[in-house]
């Protein structure tokens, strides 16, 4: 905040006494002036220290042989033992592959549909109709993940609606939820079903902001709809596409475990067990805190490294424009 009276004060002080106010005095004055602002910051800072920074310190449990009686600090160090155990465990390659596959396929399949939807909606001339369509297409976003997965189980069960159609054609049902081969497709397609409308909002808003003179000029030049989309709409969308891509690529290791966990059945574990659901099971269900904290930490480190790499590559490809 520009505190004009303060500045005037300082100037008059300078003029009258000729004393040059040192940087430190200035800072001190500003700290005094802004004392209430720092008080306002306190609740947020304290909560962040307790619930974000304490756990970061607590993550050293991953390098310790955790003993609940001793607590985190006093437990003996074991170095990288837990990480070695994880990397050489028979589960490791399955967990890593499952995690990577589900998010890379999800990114590849899920990236374009919202963009296409936004371009499609942009061709609907009547604003009223467009808004009604958006109202419907955004709705699934507000359905909770428990209900979505509940619906998946209902629709895909042996006597559910999908299988009653399949049984009519082939004579026998497909056990979607217990066949590991279907897990990823179900996970990703239902995600697109739920998110396509909502993820398109930013693109839609960007297209709405495109200067209509551009379209008119293109029209005069005899460009058809597809050419207008290619030469006007897509370039307008490009910056947001880049940002969205970096953000999703940087989140590759953060698969939505809330949904994956709910979709797991004892039969589909070979494809549905991902690192984050494994952390939950080992840590909170089996109580092996230290080992599962190490697995979680491993996951996070890879994620941060990926974010940095993807951001770097995109910067190079996109003329120095990254995040």
């Amino acid at each position, binding site marked *: *905040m520009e505190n004009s009276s303060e500045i005037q004060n300082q100037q008059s002080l300078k003029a009258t006494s000729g004393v040059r106010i040192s940087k430190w005095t200035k800072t001190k004055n500003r700290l005094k002036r802004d004392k209430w602002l720092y008080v306002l910051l306190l609740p947020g800072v304290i909560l962040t220290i307790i619930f974000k920074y304490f756990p970061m310190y607590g993550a050293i449990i991953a390098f310790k042989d955790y003993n609940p009686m001793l607590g985190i600090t006093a437990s003996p160090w074991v170095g990288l033992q837990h990480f070695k155990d994880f990397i050489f465990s028979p589960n490791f390659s399955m967990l890593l592959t499952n995690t990577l596959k589900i998010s890379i396929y999800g990114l590849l399949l899920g990236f374009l549909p919202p963009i296409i939807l936004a371009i499609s909606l942009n061709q609907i001339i009547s604003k009223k109709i467009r808004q009604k369509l958006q109202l419907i297409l955004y709705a699934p976003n507000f359905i909770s993940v428990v209900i979505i997965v509940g619906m998946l189980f209902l629709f895909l069960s042996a006597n559910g609606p999908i299988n009653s159609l399949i049984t009519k054609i082939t004579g026998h049902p497909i056990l979607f939820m217990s066949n590991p081969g279907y897990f990823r497709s179900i996970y990703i397609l239902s995600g697109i079903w739920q998110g396509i409308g909502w993820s398109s909002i930013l693109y839609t808003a960007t297209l709405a902001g495109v200067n209509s003179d551009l379209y008119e000029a293109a029209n005069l030049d005899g460009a058809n709809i597809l050419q207008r989309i290619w030469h006007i709409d897509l370039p307008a969308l490009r910056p947001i596409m880049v940002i969205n891509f970096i953000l999703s690529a940087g989140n590759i290791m953060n698969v939505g475990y809330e949904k994956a966990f709910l979709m797991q059945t004892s039969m589909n574990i070979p494809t549905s067990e991902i690192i984050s659901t494994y952390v939950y099971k080992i840590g909170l269900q089996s109580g092996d805190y230290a080992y599962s904290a190490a697995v979680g930490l491993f996951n996070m480190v890879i994620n941060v490294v990926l974010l940095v790499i993807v951001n770097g590559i995109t910067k190079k490809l996109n003329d120095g424009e990254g995040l």
Partner: protein
Amino acid sequence: MDMQTYTKFDKRIMRVNRIIIAFLVLITIIPLIYVVIASFMDPATLINKGISFNPRDWTTQGYRRVFADSSILRGFMNSLFYSFTFSFLTVLVTMLTAYPLSKKDLVGRNVITMFFVITMFVGGGLIPTYLIIKDLGMLDTPWALIVPGAVNVWNIILARTYFNGLPKELSEAATIDGANDLQILFKIMLPLAKPIMFVLFLYAFVGQWNAYFDAMIYLKNPDLQPLQLVLRNILIQNQPSQDMIGANTAMAEMKQIAELIKYSTIVISSLPLIVMYPFFQKYFDKGILVGSIKG
């Protein structure tokens, strides 16, 4: 766009486009309509034939059975409480934090901002966070859902951007009149920031209403369970309460009833959001758009 002329080719493309969108809309609403119809079916018909449009196959049995048990209502009340208190707290903390950070000449502003932003990318992880909450004695208390997530850095950035967009003259004038920063925030800035507070409140509310994972980890007492955990028991773990199924029910019938109850449960629990959603939709859109113009 209406100034444009459309060639035959353009019109054909637009027709194809309308078909694509109609298809998408159908795909979106058919599952939802199916659930609603299925929730009114007779259990035996539902499991043997699926839904039917013959009114003689329709019953309200599913709903009567769901309400025969108190768990849904209790979960509903719990969720209402958690969502309201959480949203209130998170909006309050967000505004308190965002206002000082919107002051360009605050000493240490960049360091404090970094202090918050880092937590968006780096964290202790599930287990260390759990241990802290356990050590604080928050397990099996509502606090575990309300307090730990109250600082949302993304919201703080949004609110800070919003404050930056408000005219500076207002707070300058108030300073000259002798108001301190607390008075300026609560008497001048917050009333002006009502729109963004409303948007943040809605987002927080829906997020908390729809979440189940933290409650699953932190709350073991069934009396504290939010709606989503009750739903999980019924929909995913196939454990509807005995009151819903009814005593002395044959095995085969139990299975049919359990199936029907799932559909009715989905409708009952989604109804409040679906009814309110059209009124709030423009605010949700606004939230996303404000978020995109980040400072």
